[in-house]
């Protein structure tokens, strides 16, 4: 005959402790795998915007980045940017150049497409629609969240590539064409894949969708 042996109090505590440890380990492993876990996703339908026609929503892996465009500052640049967004040209295009906590750059429509990524030329392509003139404002400040058109070393070489600043960059004033500013979602941009050793990213993250709030 087998006698039932009752667990002692300390054995019960040990079992509870091991169970809790297993649960916490599981949650921890899950959470570090999910880089977006603590990133707030902004729903534009729940936000009031004064000028809805100039609001663009960039959807990335960790959520929405809501951008206000500045047509009064850079009329031609913003017009071009809006057209590319409306034609859905930025969808599935890489964030190919990312400097950790500093800047993200994407928009190479020629060599940065997810289904046709070309590492050899990535970062050198444009829209194929021609170059834009640089639109400089002597009063605009490139602060954290500013969206600007990227270009080569020379002015008047802007096309489709753009960058978003994650820090203030006073030296960018009067250098680049300002396009707009991030209103919500900088945390989403901080989660975009970067390389510690290089500003160019191998196997980069992509823009999932880029849309105007009002089409």
């Amino acid at each position, binding site marked *: 005959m087998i006698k039932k042996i009752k667990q002692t109090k300390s054995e019960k505590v040990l079992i509870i402790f091991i169970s809790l440890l297993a649960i916490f380990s599981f949650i921890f492993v899950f959470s570090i795998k999910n880089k977006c876990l603590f990133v707030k996703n902004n729903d534009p339908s729940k936000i009031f915007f004064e000028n809805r026609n100039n609001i663009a929503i960039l959807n990335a892996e960790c959520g929405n980045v809501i951008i206000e465009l500045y047509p009064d500052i850079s009329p031609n640049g913003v017009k071009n940017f809006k057209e590319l967004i409306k034609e859905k040209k930025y969808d599935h295009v890489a964030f190919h150049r990312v*400097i950790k906590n500093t800047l993200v750059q994407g928009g190479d429509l020629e060599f940065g497409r997810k289904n046709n990524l070309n590492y050899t030329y990535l970062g050198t392509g444009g829209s194929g629609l021609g170059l834009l003139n640089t639109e400089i404002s002597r009063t605009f400040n490139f602060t954290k969240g500013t969206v600007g058109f990227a270009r080569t070393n020379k002015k008047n070489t802007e096309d489709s590539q753009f960058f978003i600043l994650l*820090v203030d960059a006073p030296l960018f004033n009067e250098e680049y064409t300002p396009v707009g500013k991030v209103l919500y979602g900088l945390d989403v941009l901080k989660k975009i894949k970067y390389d*510690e*050793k*290089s*500003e*160019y990213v*191998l196997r980069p993250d992509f823009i999932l969708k880029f849309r105007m709030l009002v089409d």
Partner: protein
Amino acid sequence: MKFLKIIFITFVLISSANANTIFYLIKIPNLEIYDDTAQNGLKYLKAIKPFQVGIRDNNVSCSNPKKELLEKKYRSIRQNLDKYSYDFLEKINFKYVVLCKNLSVSGIEAIGFSNPKMKTILIDIGINTYDLGRISHHELFHIINENFKNIFNEIDWKDINEDSFLYSECSTCSENFGLDLIENQNGFLSEYSKSTPSEDMAEIFSFLMTRNSKIATIASSDKIIRKKINFIKDNIYKIDKNFQF
């Protein structure tokens, strides 16, 4: 195609890990803003750590200067470069001044270096105060020269010299890098002037900007120098008719 891929991968591998927005702009790591309040729009940057850019024979390296040295020498550079107006600097496409110490270019010690593509000059602030001013003008002239090559025609410049004179093959090929004003000029203001036409022009320009009256005296008795001064002045006025030497 393979070659391009190798270049791209090499570029990815050698890109600086210390990138920031200044690196994004002028491709030099480990810099921070020292002074961005100049009325003419020039931005003064300082090295906060040693840096090296470029590879093998085309590398430029420099280290971070001590705060006290920087404070002592900066005023001289600023005073000299404040002579240029915002509009003039816009025309010649010059914007950034990097202040560092122990500058070397391709392994050779240097006191200044210009990178016209990046609108940047680098200055070794370890040298004496007078030379700092002159070097600033000298390097600025290289920016002008690069952006207005059609105006500062080297063939026309060479024709000013005596027929028997030949410049060296390159600016570092000469054995004498002397920057001091020499006694018997005979067409050249310093030994370094004799290295290349571009350096000769930059020397004339920098002396004009720092010792104008002395150079005017020299020009009155040296026909070649007089012609060189007129060449520089006439061409600078083509870029900006209101320029003041």
